[in-house]
């Protein structure tokens, strides 16, 4: 039980560091730590497949992509000029208002039943695969088209445009 609260504290702590770190490379490293705490949350919920996918896809692939772009653009220094103080304050207040609204609506919803895992096999690959390839077969196939189009789009965008000869 206390494991959850400790990991939840770490999640919040590292995500605050993500948005407050001056150096973008530090931000990426803190984000990797945040995703690691999310992986632990998934393990605590016995969602083993999601834990592995989160570990490999998010921490492995996506974060490496971020770091790669950052190194490619040579952004590993504090080039950010910093927003105006008032703009930062307004952003923080807006986010705080959103949090207040969410917590307020959570208070209105008084019921707080504990999360109980009825079926220990719920998050295993075998069970999820049956659902994914049965009930959700069409969305699965469409998501493959989405990934293909994203790949084509990324290549098209990153390709060097020929200089207009004018």
């Amino acid at each position: 039980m206390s494991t959850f609260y400790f990991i939840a504290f770490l999640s919040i702590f590292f995500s605050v560091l993500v948005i407050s770190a001056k150096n973008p490379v530090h931000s990426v490293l803190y984000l990797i730590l945040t995703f690691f705490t999310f992986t632990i949350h998934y393990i605590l919920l016995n969602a083993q497949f999601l834990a592995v996918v989160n570990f490999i896809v998010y921490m492995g692939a996506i974060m490496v992509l971020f770091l790669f772009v950052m190194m490619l653009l040579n952004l590993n220094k504090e080039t950010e000029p910093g927003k105006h103080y008032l703009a930062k304050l307004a952003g923080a207040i807006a986010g705080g208002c959103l949090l207040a609204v969410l917590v307020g609506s959570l208070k209105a919803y008084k019921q707080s039943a504990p999360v109980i895992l009825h079926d220990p096999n719920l998050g295993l690959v075998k069970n999820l695969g049956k659902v994914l390839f049965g009930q959700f077969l069409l969305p699965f196939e469409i998501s493959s088209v989405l990934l293909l189009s994203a790949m084509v789009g990324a290549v098209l965008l990153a390709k060097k445009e020929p200089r207009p000869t004018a």
Partner: protein
Amino acid sequence: MGNNITQTIQTIPLNHYILLSAIIFSIGVVGVLIRRNAIVVFMSVELMLNAVNLLLTAFSVYKGDASGQVFVFFVMALAAAEVAVGLAIIVMIYRNTHSTDINVLSRLKW
């Protein structure tokens, strides 16, 4: 093993999961609002997506329905596509303007 984990999570109220996700989602929103570096803004969006993923998983376990975890899988596929295209756009912007400051892009509003 399965029983152990069941014992571990049995005592955590669902509200605490909702609260944790709400806090992390709000941190992501604040990050989008106060940062000017386009890549950090992207990372804040990732933070928001992950908060939602955690909540979907918690509700999936709470209801004993595997559909929620399948949705998380789809959200992850979507996030991968979004990051690939978004980072390509950022690279292209950097090539044209030599910065990733989002204020440079305010000329788009004309």
